[in-house]
């Protein structure tokens, strides 16, 4: 076997084959980079030694329902981790082959192999990014990627109460293909499809209404504060900003208490003032509860827009107003044709951002109504009249233990929201100024 290399590029095949046969072999045999080669070879040895466990884990995941000794959810998560290890190994393999070929190219150019000292130095230089990135990679893989894959796979199992829970002995979880998707979206189960349609329509309505009420409420307040130029403006502004400063989880919970049908202070006050004779079911009537959700969300959300739009208004150059005044525009005309269009134009990305935020606004619904009042379908599906998708997912996971259905919904939310979210991010300064 000829271990020497020719500089004309004809030995490329030799290096490639050696690198493919065993990781690091090309480095050791031909490029004489022993340290790097041994490290790479050691990685492959470790992988081969653990390959039995990895394959076992994968097998356990594929045959989810076999065997009673381990919880199926642990089998699922172990299988996904094994899959990640496999992918990682393949990537390292590809990189090692690439690095061997690069090493050979360098050899062709310089006509000699790198000395050991040089290659060790190079290794230390390259070690920094690897060490610095490893916490990020590990954390992202285990707490972002694995959960994501787990969610996707859960949607294809029957993991749910009452018959398919991991804790119950002898009740196994198994793959069921697309049946959850069919039940949820295509009328496979009329209860689920009906609940989904109701929740989806309300989620979209909620997203639009919550965004526009807050936006226009904020614009009007900002305009009043800006145009009227009262002496007490700072006092009003300080008061109106308060809901933004206090955590919304607390204020929404206070509203829930205020609006309680039987003992809430609002009903009590109205009754004692003689305005109403019987209590108003603020949160217990499905139509009224939806209106109340939007009103309370206005209380929480308007100050944010007021703040933003005030900022935009003060940023408009005084020259523009000066020009308008000289042309004889009245105050209302100036506002309608100059201030408002300029502000609107500047805040369009914010409206989209706010829309995606509201679609996912767990707190505004969950802490106020908890998704209630319940509907005819609630006993089976758990979806109440004011539930939006995220609160429904939360309740399906935490209360009803319908994990497979929750996973299907989570996937839908992601697919629908991803384009918006990417749009938002592409619009940020950090994306525009940075390079890939």
């Amino acid at each position, binding site marked *: 076997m000829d271990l020497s290399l020719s500089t004309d590029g004809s030995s490329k095949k030799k290096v490639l084959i050696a690198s493919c046969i065993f990781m690091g072999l090309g480095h050791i045999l031909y490029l004489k980079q022993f340290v790097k080669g041994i490290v790479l070879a050691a990685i492959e040895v470790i992988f081969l030694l653990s390959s039995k466990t990895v394959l076992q884990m994968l097998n356990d995941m594929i045959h989810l329902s076999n065997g009673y000794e381990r919880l199926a959810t642990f089998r699922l998560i172990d299988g996904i981790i094994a899959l990640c290890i496999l992918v990682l190994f393949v990537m390292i393999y590809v990189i090692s082959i690439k690095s061997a070929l690069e090493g050979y190219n360098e050899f062709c150019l310089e006509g000699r192999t790198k000395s050991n000292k040089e290659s060790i130095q190079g290794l230390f230089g390259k070690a920094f990014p690897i060490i610095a990135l490893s916490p990020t990679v590990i954390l992202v893989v285990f707490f972002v990627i694995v959960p994501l894959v787990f969610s996707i796979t859960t949607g294809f199992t029957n993991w749910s109460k009452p018959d398919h829970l991991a804790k119950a002995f002898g009740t196994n979880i198994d793959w069921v293909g697309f049946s959850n998707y069919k039940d949820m979206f295509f009328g496979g189960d009329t209860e689920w499809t009906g609940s989904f349609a109701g929740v989806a329509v309300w989620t979209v309505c909620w997203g639009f209404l919550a965004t526009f009420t807050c936006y226009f409420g904020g614009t009007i307040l900002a305009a009043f504060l800006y145009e009227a130029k009262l002496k007490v403006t700072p006092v009003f502004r300080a008061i109106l900003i308060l*809901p933004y400063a206090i955590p919304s989880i607390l204020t929404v919970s206070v509203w829930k208490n205020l609006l309680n049908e039987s003992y809430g202070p609002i009903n009590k006050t109205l009754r004692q003032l003689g305005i109403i004779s019987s209590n108003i079911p603020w949160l217990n009537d499905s139509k009224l509860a939806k209106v109340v959700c939007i009103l309370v969300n206005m209380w929480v959300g308007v100050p944010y827009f007021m703040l933003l739009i005030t900022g935009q208004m003060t940023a408009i150059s005084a020259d523009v107003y000066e020009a308008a005044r000289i042309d004889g525009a009245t105050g209302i005309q100036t506002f309608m044709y100059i201030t408002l269009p300029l502000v609107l134009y500047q805040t369009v*990305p914010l409206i989209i951002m706010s829309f995606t935020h509201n679609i996912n606004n767990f707190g505004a619904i969950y802490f106020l109504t908890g998704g209630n009042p319940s509907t005819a379908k609630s006993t089976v599906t758990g979806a109440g009249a004011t539930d939006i998708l995220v609160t429904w997912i939360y309740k399906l996971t935490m209360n009803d233990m319908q994990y497979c259905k929750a996973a299907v919904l989570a996937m839908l939310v992601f697919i629908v929201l991803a384009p918006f979210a990417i749009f938002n991010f592409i619009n940020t300064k950090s994306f525009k100024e940075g390079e890939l």
Partner: protein
Amino acid sequence: MEDKAKNASTKRTVFKVFVCVVLTICSLVVLYPIIYTISTAFSPLMTDANSNIIPFADGFSTLQFERLFLDEDYLLWVKNTLFLAICTCLLSVVVCSLSAYVFSRFKFAMRKGMMISMLVLQVFPSFVGMIAIYVIINRIGAADQLWGLVLVYVSGNIPYNTWLVKSYLDTIPKSLDEAARIDGANHMKIFFSVIFPIAKPIIIFLAITTFTGPWMDYIFPKMILSTSEHYTLAIGIMRFIESTTNKFTLFAAGAILVSVPFVIFFVAGQKAMTTGLGAAAVKG
């Protein structure tokens, strides 16, 4: 001519009065729940079910605060939350700025692939993987542990924050660290003595957002923490109104204690945050 001017000035006065009325009504609507909460927090009643509709009419006492500190684990919750916030903040700053530095300054295999996957991953709302995170936390024995929650928070905000810091570092000229390298400094030293000081504004912004994030988060602590000694403030306070017995007076006292630092922080940091937000968020 005089008539017209007079007319305009009357119009102006009418407008001002109208605005005043609207703003007063809005302010009352804003203040009503806040005043009600404050009055409940200082009420001597055990529950607000039979409270007077006029604020502070039930009398004034610090009973609720005494109950909070003596009968409940309130101080423990503050300590837990503080621990959580500090750990999340420190770890996020170190991990995100290190990886941002690597992405900004090094060329290596899969760099682009990793950056794009970060971009895609920061799109997922965290609750998508909620149940899986719960299983993983159980798997590694971090159930009911604060450090498990720290891991969840830190890893959840890595993708977005890495991008944020990286794009800031991209604006710092590379000649600076090259000069340091010629002087014989290694990467670690360059990072801490050259990059870190220059990137201060974005690091401070990162520190503030990661520090304030855990204070009022509900979903993950609720899922992971199960004993009162390990609760965070949000879970502890929310439990008062989630249980079947209404403890709204206690909730009000706890909410006031939490809100006061938030409002002070907001007023003090408003300017700093808006500039930081400007850098991070949508281009104005």
